[in-house]
């Protein structure tokens, strides 16, 4: 029966209560940390790092104790890690933005012929044309 297998899953309520208290303490910490500016002027990097570290700690508490990640089988643990590891892969997209400018080119929405090669018209004027082409080009 199920209860025989799941005996080791039943945690004392104290674990859950402690987790909840931990989460509240961390929530207070993140609220306090947002009120003070950390690090030099002109950057909020350190504040952001602190906020994210606290959020990750909270998330870890939830996964380990509320979601029983700590007590699950190895297979489940692999999938838990897989999800959070793979999502960090998307930061590869940020690497792109770190190595180039990303403001839109001014006037991008007014340039009607932007889909054509840059010097299309000049090239077209100088290109020798076939007889066939001259005859059919009249078509719109």
């Amino acid at each position, binding site marked *: 029966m199920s209860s025989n297998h799941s005996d080791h899953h039943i945690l004392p309520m104290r674990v859950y209560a402690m987790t909840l208290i931990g989460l509240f303490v961390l929530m207070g910490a993140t609220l306090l940390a947002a009120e003070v500016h950390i690090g030099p002027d002109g950057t909020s990097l350190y504040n952001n790092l602190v906020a994210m570290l606290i959020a990750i700690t909270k998330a870890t508490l939830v996964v380990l104790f509320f979601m029983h990640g700590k007590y699950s089988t190895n297979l489940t643990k692999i999938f838990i890690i897989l999800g959070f590891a793979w999502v960090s892969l998307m930061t590869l*997209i940020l690497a*792109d933005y770190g*190595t*180039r400018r*990303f403001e839109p080119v001014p006037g991008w929405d007014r340039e009607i012929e932007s889909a054509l090669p840059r010097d299309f018209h000049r090239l077209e004027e100088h290109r020798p044309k076939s007889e066939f082409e001259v005859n059919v080009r009249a078509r719109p």
Partner: protein
Amino acid sequence: MSASLSPNGQAHHEEPNYLNVTHTLKSWLLTGDHKRIAILYLISISVFFFLGSTAAGLVRLELTSPTGWLMENDTYNKAFTAHGVIMIFFFLIPSIPAVFGNFLLPIMIGARDLAFPRLNLLSWYLYMIGGTLALIGILGGGVDTGWTFYTPYSSLYSNSQVTITILGAFIAGFSSIATGINFIVTIHKMRAPGMTWFRLPLFVWAHYATSLIIILGTPVIAITLLLVIAERVFRLGVFSPELGGDPVLFQHLFWFYSHPAVYIMILPAMGVISEIMAAFCRKRVFGYSFVAFSSLAIAGLSFFVWGHHMFVTSQSMYQGFFFSLVSFLVAVPSAVKVFNWTATIYKGRVYLDTPMIYALGFIGLFTIGGLTGLYLATLGTDVHLTASYFVVAHFHYVMVGGAILGFLGALHFWWPKMFGRMYPQGWGKFNAMLVFAGFNITFLPQFVLGFNGMPRRYHYYYLYPEFQVYHILSTAGASILAVSFLIPAVYLTWSLIKGPRASANPWGAHGLEWEVASPPITTNFVTTPIVRDEVYAYDEVDEYEQVQGTEEIVHPTRTEDKH
């Protein structure tokens, strides 16, 4: 033998199989049986394949003239978009996993069903809802964005039915997620006693890799498409340059899924080819574990290459270097597979039956498709070749020459198992060669076209009338290809009614699926099998030949025709 089955399915011919156990429509539409769901999928993706092919036919017809003679500009845009959307989202992605994966995966690992039968049925319904919505968009007004739905055109400018079509693709995404989750859990938890990871058929390995890509990639495209819908409907502006957003971010997120999606389409086909090569060479697949791990390697690497679709966007050139390098690396596991299949033929006893001809065709065409991919992964040549017919030819070599030949090979290989009937071998072999010929006539000229500068998605090329001969060649090949898709439809349907009954193992192949009855009973196995040996344990002397007492190559089905 790969497994010992105490009373195996063959002994119970009187027992009703999964096809005739019940007959009502309700018993099909509310079924939890993975085999019935596979049949439902087979019917529905055939319909979508027909529609997508029709759109392709229209595109090819239009291109026979340099000035266009059949369609207006907008209509042409809608035709190629219809072709792309239907073929990618509603045929290629579900094709092999949802039909053959669904049907075979539980049988191959010795399970009674997938882990979540109701989720499986839900996936078919989601697919049908998504497909219907997309068809409403495509047929009721049309979409002109191309299947890639690039912003800001799709979000700000296009006046066609983009929203409903994207919604269809979004919902279909959840259908493939459901299939992926089901396969992963099934492969992990439902294997029969003794079915260790390295006794699994390579088909199962390929589907495991595919499922990983599905669950890791599909959600990203889902949210991206949802954002495009939000931009169109609620005027939110995540990809809108007017608000400081970046349209290239859409391309990043889109290809984050859509490049791995290419491997969702090709990996299952590779699994099929591994099965067919082993069965028709009567030999263990050469380097089993390398082929198995190359599937996982392709799945892993597939997430690091998406940027090669964006070499000519504003993507940083440093990232271009990276993506170019990793794209080259994907060639390694792909080549491992091709070399190992080829090595399997060496000293094997090759039976050139219909599925084998498809498999050999696959190897050749996939190799061409893969190698031309390297041209496109090279930063310099890609600038010249991008968005040209070279790209079109390249991915059709992989998608049609790879995935569809794999699909047809699988269909011909497991048709006797699915329906318990044999199809006419002569027609089968003839058609396999016809597909190969028609395919090459269609797409080989497109490499030349693209290299000479024919852009994709254009239908006027009157500036370059010399392209016309290649386009006409290509259209001629496409008509051969169309015929070669209709012929199997005819003889396979014929075989359902008049075809000779197939035995449990008409090809003399190994694997649990060949040890159950054709067609299998609802629970697949009478008792759970216990596996004692690896799946490709072909004996030194072919068992079938032993029975016949001759070394002459006799068609295995010939003896079964008497039934």
